């Protein structure tokens, strides 16, 4: 499996505060993704990146922004956290170079917005 880490692993914050989650991968993968996981919804794509400084929206991007200044790091920012953003957030990466490859997931970050 790809070496993907997420930080922090757990965070509790208050409504209205900014929050940044970090994803770090050591595989030199071109593509990186942020998903959120909620009961009854499975995983839903928030944003993804197809290279340094190249990002695009997923299906649930409202209230989130991302940045990728280095290949290995992909940051997810909640500008002003709301209770509806309480969720488990997963990062993934993908090489994009081999047809037989797939996305590899990090361990997740549990975010609670009070």
């Amino acid at each position, binding site marked *: 499996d790809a070496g993907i880490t997420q930080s922090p692993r757990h965070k509790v914050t208050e409504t209205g505060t900014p929050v940044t989650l970090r994803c770090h991968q050591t595989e030199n993968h071109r593509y990186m993704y942020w998903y959120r996981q909620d009961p009854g919804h499975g995983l839903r794509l928030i944003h993804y990146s197809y290279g340094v400084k190249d990002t695009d929206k997923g299906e649930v991007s409202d209230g989130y922004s991302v940045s990728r200044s280095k290949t290995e790091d992909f940051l997810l920012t909640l500008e002003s956290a709301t209770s509806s953003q309480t969720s488990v957030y997963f990062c993934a990466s993908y090489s994009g170079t081999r047809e037989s490859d797939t996305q590899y*997931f990090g361990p997740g970050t549990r975010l609670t917005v009070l």
Partner: protein
Amino acid sequence: AQSVTQPDIHITVSEGASLELRCNYSYGATPYLFWYVQSPGQGLQLLLKYFSGDTLVQGIKGFEAEFKRSQSSFNLRKPSVHWSDAAEYFCAVGGFGTASKLTFGTGTRLQVTL
């Protein structure tokens, strides 16, 4: 738009019994199909994937899945379930290229009784 349906939210089987988890997909081109497993509090682990070729694919932990294009299905099977298989299982569909964005089903939670 691509979509995945996992009609069973929760399944309970006895240890040693056979298992089949259902997955139906909608995708406009040749689909790439995946099954992931998630143990409580953990990230997602790839069980198996289908890209092309033989429609019966083998995965880790004794799992297999069969791709049936005519039925738009990719059901996961195991001949004899072990208590350690209790987890949540996610089916996903995507395609090669275009950042390989995956669409996940809502998941099936498997409970194994002894």
